[in-house]
């Protein structure tokens, strides 16, 4: 038996424990990436019904804005080779949608609901016989057809340009910027109302044609 009785256990100082924990905490805080997935939303058309025969829907030539992409990533826009920047394509689409060539009754109503700045835009750039009648359903369709060899990058760029044209129209219609438009929260009643008001009568008519085999 050792003499001297019990010696007090040497205490481990726990003062730095908080620091160690902090270090670990900061490590996890920094390495955590909360994945925020963002992208371009699209709704694919419903699958073809085998029972239904092909319906020929007649749409006037001038009401379709044709974008074709070939396997060399070259664009054909409205039957003419397109050599400009992608941002120019956006302006073309915008002019096409807001053309009001020969508006129907609904089209007239949409026109009257536009803010004065957009009416001026229509009067300056639009009213062309060769372009769309009005932006209502079925009267202004953006058709995009890609080849099987087209790169995905170009496809996204064109889709992005067309979408940005529509978003700018919607945003301008309710008097906000395109950035704000994208951040509208549809769960909020006021913002949802704004969203509906902007899209009233101007559907986002983008047709993605199936590529040739």
């Amino acid at each position, binding site marked *: 038996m050792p003499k001297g009785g019990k010696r007090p256990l040497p205490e481990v100082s726990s003062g730095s424990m908080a620091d160690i924990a902090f270090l670990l905490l900061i490590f996890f805080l920094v390495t*955590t990436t909360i994945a925020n997935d963002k*992208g371009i939303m699209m709704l694919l058309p419903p699958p073809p019904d085998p029972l239904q025969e092909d319906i020929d829907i007649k749409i006037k030539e001038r009401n379709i804005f044709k974008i074709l992409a070939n396997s060399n990533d070259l664009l054909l826009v409205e039957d003419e080779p397109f050599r400009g920047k992608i941002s120019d394509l956006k302006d073309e689409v915008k002019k096409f949608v807001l053309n009001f060539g020969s508006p129907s009754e609904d089209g007239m109503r949409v026109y009257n609901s536009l803010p004065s700045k957009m009416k001026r835009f229509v009067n300056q750039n639009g009213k062309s016989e060769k372009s769309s009648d009005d932006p209502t359903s079925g009267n202004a369709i953006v058709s995009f057809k890609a080849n099987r060899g087209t790169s995905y990058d170009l496809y996204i760029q064109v889709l*992005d340009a067309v979408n940005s044209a529509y978003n700018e129209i919607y945003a301008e219609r309710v008097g906000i910027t395109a950035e704000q438009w994208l951040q509208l929260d549809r769960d909020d009643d006021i913002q949802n109302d704004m969203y509906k008001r902007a899209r009233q009568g101007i559907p986002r008519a983008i047709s993605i044609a199936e590529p040739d085999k």
Partner: protein
Amino acid sequence: MPKFKKSTGTSEEIPTAALPDIIFMLLFFFMVTTVMRETDIMVKQQLPKATQLTKIERKSLVSYIYMGKPANSTLYGEEPKIQTNDVFVTVEDVVQFVNQEKDKLSEVERDQITMSMKVDTEVKMGLVTDVQEELRKSNARRVLYSSIKTSRE
């Protein structure tokens, strides 16, 4: 004259003994909630850049399809491949994958399933449209082309 003596026995220091516990609690919270990465991505992923991006509202409704050249080209070749979960699949298998994902959701939410397509920029549209055809067939029509935000010029 004050009638009460100031009590001097109480210390004014805040006890810090519980501090490590609080920090540990935070630490555990972050350790538990952190999802490192569910799947190993075995294809090249250089996502396209775009400006008009929307966020997805509900993450539980989203399933991912990855497309691109295999990262390990000596083993899998140079042709772009489709990856779901942890395996390479063929175009025909996409329907099965969608149905599997749909089964995880409740009855009412099945129609709202969103397929997030994470496609490499070098992939040709042929493969993408083939997959889209399958998605149409399996009635998963909401598609998100996952892309990276570009700063405006």
